[in-house]
């Protein structure tokens, strides 16, 4: 770890950035709930094992 506020160039190891192919379409996402608007509370949410039949049918057909 280095002190970024007081770092000098020689404190860094230089890594060349990858070349971008700007001819291709890129996707960029950033979604925030608008402050003050409705926000889900997830109070009834739970995480549990998926029913086995369902898991076999869609994710592990051979099991």
């Amino acid at each position: 770890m280095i002190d970024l506020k007081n770092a000098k160039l020689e404190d860094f190891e230089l890594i060349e950035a990858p070349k971008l192919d700007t001819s291709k379409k890129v996707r960029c996402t950033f979604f925030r709930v608008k402050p003050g608007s409705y926000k889900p509370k997830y109070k009834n949410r739970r995480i549990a094992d998926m029913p086995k039949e369902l898991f076999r049918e869609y994710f592990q057909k051979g099991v």
Partner: protein
Amino acid sequence: MSTFKKEYDVQASAVITNALVMVADELKEGAEFPPCVYTENAAWDTGAEITIISPRLVETLGLVTHNKGEFMGIGGDQSVSTYMVHIGLANGKMIYNEEVYCSDIDDYDLLIGMDIITQTDFLITNKDGKTTFQFRTPSEGGIEL
């Protein structure tokens, strides 16, 4: 604890997995399952505060609006509907009663946002230019780089 691992042959430009999105009806082992859509286009998106499904999924599943929400995205502010779904993850876990937003998300069917990612341990490595993505639930912590 249940772990999922996906190894790419290249440096991945996005983390995409499969997933199952289901109408949020009651689920019972052995009983008929509610309508569901299997997709191989679920993107894990740390830039999304919430989880978003595509209008195609809403239409296919015949989902009914649960609430109205607003979010700020790349294209500006949006007022959208929220829906209740179950989301099956590839590690065999299902998130029951997940409230999701609906928006046009290009050719993705599902953006798995930080509301779900923070229920997991989430790891990406890129050794030798090959991306490996892993997640596990429940979180156990203890991963140090």
